[in-house]
């Protein structure tokens, strides 16, 4: 049984830009590495794309100290954008993606507007089809999230990127805001083609041990992800899709078929799966098969038909 019925196209009606996905299931940035790292666990034909680890202009070693803190229903991370840098990505990682025919979103992050412009230009020069702009990482001191929380600066940043990058432009938004609708509107009017949401929520993990009459405290502050953030993601995706016409990729606590349906009901056109890969590294393959089988059993010829029915349900 094939999964051809999962093929879908994300389209920005205004610019005419589109992204064809062989399935609407995408490996979320930071959980999928750069290319074939999951090959022992997943057949990549089930993935619409992978979103690469967030890439910066220069190589970054990330944060020092504990980086992971598990909580009920999720985890807090403070990796701090450790990555190989754009130059090494283009020379070492990109050829492997191409050789293996893996569709991908290049996820980029910067400290300054110039950083983002340079990265976008490199993406353009290398004919990279889709760019996901991270303006929402809570784990770095400078830049990134600073651009993502203010509609004016976000508009300005995306306009600059749009000038140099012609491919499918996705903006990954933060949930750490009072006004997601204004951010979404700014993204759309600046000419982006798609919004992915949400990035992690700010969180603090605290562990107290009591040993030999003494308390020991351990804290990890970072971004919260996993099934526990799904209601926040549903709320945000709902707000975003009611404010803009461009397609929305849902991210946040997705791990099972009903999660896909719930996000489709609030306007999602595709899905990114992140933290769930850690418990089940073949979760995307499993979801693709389940979704495809559900559609065949219930006479949905295309993913778009299913989406329409769920949305109107």
């Amino acid at each position, binding site marked *: 049984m094939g999964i051809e019925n999962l093929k879908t196209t994300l389209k920005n009606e205004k610019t005419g830009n589109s992204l064809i996905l062989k399935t609407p299931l995408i490996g979320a940035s930071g*959980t999928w590495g750069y290319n074939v*790292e999951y090959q022992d*666990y997943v057949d990549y034909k089930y993935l619409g794309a992978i979103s690469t680890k967030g890439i910066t202009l220069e190589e970054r070693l990330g944060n020092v100290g504990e980086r*992971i803190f*598990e909580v009920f229903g999720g985890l807090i991370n403070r*990796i701090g954008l450790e990555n190989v840098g754009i130059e090494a990505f283009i020379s070492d990682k990109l050829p492997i993606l191409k050789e293996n025919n893996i569709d991908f979103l290049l996820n980029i992050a910067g400290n300054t507007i110039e950083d983002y412009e340079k990265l976008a230009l490199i993406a353009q020069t290398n004919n990279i089809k889709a760019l996901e702009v991270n303006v929402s990482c809570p784990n770095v001191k400078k830049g990134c999230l600073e651009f993502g929380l203010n509609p004016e600066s976000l508009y300005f940043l995306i306009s600059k990127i749009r000038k140099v990058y012609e491919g499918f432009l996705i903006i990954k938004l933060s949930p750490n805001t009072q006004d997601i609708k204004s951010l979404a509107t700014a993204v759309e009017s600046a000419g982006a083609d798609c919004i992915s949401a949400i990035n992690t929520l700010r969180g603090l993990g605290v562990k107290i041990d009591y040993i030999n009459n003494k308390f020991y405290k351990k804290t990890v502050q970072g971004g919260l992800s996993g099934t526990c953030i799904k209601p926040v993601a549903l709320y945000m995706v709902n707000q975003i899709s009611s404010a803009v016409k461009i397609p929305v990729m849902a991210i946040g606590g997705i791990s099972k078929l009903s999660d896909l349906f719930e996000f489709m009901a609030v306007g999602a056109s595709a899905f990114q799966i992140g933290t769930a890969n850690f418990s089940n*590294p073949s979760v995307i393959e499993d979801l693709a098969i389940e979704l495809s089988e559900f559609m065949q059993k219930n006479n949905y010829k295309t993913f778009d038909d299913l989406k329409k029915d769920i949305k109107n349900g």
Partner: protein
Amino acid sequence: MLSFFLRNLDMKKEFIGKIEQIEKISSDAFKMVILSDLQSVKCGQFISILCENKTLRRPFSIADFEKEANQSLTTILFKIKGQATNYLKSLKIGDSVDFLAPLGNGFEIDNKKALLIGAGIGIAPMLFLKKELNKRNIENYLITGFKSRQEVIKGSDRTIIGGTVLDYIEEEIKNQKPQTVYCCAPTVVLKGVDNITRKHNLKTYLALEKVMACSIGVCRGCVIKLIKDKKIANYSVCKDGPVFLGGEIIWE
């Protein structure tokens, strides 16, 4: 080059195994033997088990491995620490276990006399290594340390109870005259062993433990810093490790 489209069942790394044996081996530690299709492992490698209600899998060093026709028996030892290990403890013979394996790099085995050091549950990979060294007729001596008599896990040549095993390493280097040292223990002991064996210029393999998220090297959650050829870089404990060479680790 990389051609993952040729991926076949032999390469599969996710297994559903069946518990063959589960028993208490000390006041707070258990032994679990899992029957599965896992085909081969190296000493020092680990498996990562999915535990009920947990987002993250839990890593366990392989304490023994035996082939049985097309299948195999993988032994792990675990100490009760929290919900995940309590869940494992609650499992019964015949229950299934979802695990990823084999993970990590494992120990290099030189054909030289070896001193093996374990502290607490860190004895697990040392028992497997000892068995392998014995099989290859490589002389070895295993010294381990436990907090109390009740916590002792059997199988060592010398067992230190109370205090720290670190206080006995100089003595055993003198007595045993090893050329290679292997150690699996909490960070404070690993660091201590690293310092001592560096002084004696002994090749040392240290097996580390760290909270892991992906178990396959992509998330960068469990990285440590190593210095190699005067260059500092991040290495993941789950994929590049868990075994690292003494003298290369930059202890936090």
